[in-house]
């Protein structure tokens, strides 16, 4: 094979290019997210995962050492501030506990079930790719930790995206900013449902919002739980502009709740573990 390739490099080039074109066609963006069709990419990710983890380890240690002294000085100031905040929050907590008990009693009276708590795992971002048209990141936890394809990923601020590929030690996440990402949502104020899509830039666009819909800048947008991927009630973003669009729809733009420039530790909800049948309905 090596000798044949050496003798006929042009033929070898054609064979390689044809193979790559077939790979592209099989993995084109119209594909469904499945592990079986991405085995080659999974293999390469797994092979280079130690390099990514080593760089992450070095970065964390160097930046810790660098920031250590400055952190110590600010920690003293923060400690005083936090003690004051703790006193305030303890008082607030006492009040909220009382209200929570009232809410539980009302739920029992009205026949509401308690919201299901999803199992979750904390994962660290080892690589973030938001530069090009496709927006993704790589987490330092994979299928060994129970992460599956289509598991939702959140930050402390709000929704980040969903897992699209897993290997035993790392997993790849499609961000909601990605041009091919869609999330079923509703407005907090009016409860009107819609679909938020990534623009490929740094903001989000809402599709198919009727011209008559009551939407205003500042409205908060939450997941509606209608897409079979994201559970309801996760903050997605806030409406930044509403304009008259084509036909009978409005053009609505949203700013994501999550600051994608400073992602570090994220939460992966193991939604697929709870409901294996949900994967069949995933887009």
């Amino acid at each position: 094979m090596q000798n044949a390739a050496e003798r006929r490099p042009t033929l070898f080039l054609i064979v390689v290019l044809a193979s790559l074109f077939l790979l592209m066609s099989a993995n084109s963006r119209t594909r469904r997210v499945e592990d079986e069709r991405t085995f080659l990419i999974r293999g390469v990710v797994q092979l280079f995962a130690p390099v990514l983890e080593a760089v992450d380890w070095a970065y964390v240690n160097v930046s810790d050492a660098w920031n250590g002294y400055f952190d110590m000085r600010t920690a003293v100031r923060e400690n005083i501030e936090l003690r004051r905040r703790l006193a305030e929050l303890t008082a607030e907590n006492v009040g909220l506990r009382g209200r929570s008990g009232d809410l539980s009693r009302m739920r029992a009276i009205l026949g509401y079930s308690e919201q299901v708590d999803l199992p979750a795992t904390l994962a660290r971002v080892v690589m973030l790719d938001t530069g090009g048209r496709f927006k993704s990141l790589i987490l330092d936890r994979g299928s060994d930790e129970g992460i599956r394809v289509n598991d939702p990923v959140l930050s402390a601020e709000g929704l980040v995206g969903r897992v699209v590929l897993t290997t035993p030690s790392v997993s790849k996440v499609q961000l909601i900013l990605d041009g091919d990402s869609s999330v079923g949502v509703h407005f907090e104020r009016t409860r009107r449902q819609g679909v938020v899509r990534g623009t490929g830039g740094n903001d989000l666009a809402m599709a198919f919002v009727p011209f008559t819909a009551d939407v205003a800048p500042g409205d908060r947008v939450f997941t509606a739980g209608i897409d079979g991927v994201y559970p309801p009630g996760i903050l997605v973003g806030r409406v930044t502009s509403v304009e008259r669009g084509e036909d009978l729809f409005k053009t609505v733009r949203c700013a994501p709740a999550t600051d994608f420039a400073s992602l570090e530790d994220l939460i992966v909800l193991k939604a697929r573990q709870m409901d294996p049948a949900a994967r069949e309905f995933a887009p």
Partner: protein
Amino acid sequence: MTILRFAAGLVIAVAIHATLNKVAPGTLVYFNPYVILVTYQAMRSGSLSRVIALGALAGLVQDSLSISLAGANAFALTLCGYAVAYVSAKIALHGSVAFGACLAGSTLGVELIVWTLTSILIATPTPFAIDIWLARTVVTTLFGLLLLQSLRLVLGADIVTTEQRRRSW
């Protein structure tokens, strides 16, 4: 030996990619370490088939670390690596200026090929970002030239000589 050298280069490219990603994520829009690696190998290696295989491998690594169209960068890097190896052998290119010119051509070529492939294979429109491509070409070329000078100083390594390349043809 070439394979080992390339493997080390690939690990360094991934490490540079991951480090920049941590330290200054914005810079990755204007920088492509994999093109530098493939162009350097294309000008250094005397074997076209080896350059084809190495270009495909480097591109697959680049593709696997993002969610871009799997195989698009591999396709583009293979084609550009082959073109650089072919031209540099026929015209007997060597030296920093030739390397810079080939690197600039490859970087722009990769962008154009990836854009064409994604436009064909993906339903949603792909923006024709020529300003970003040109910026990436300039930054990648400058960084590649800096890296070449460093390699010369540290390892004494240079682009392959004309005689070595002729021998392979």
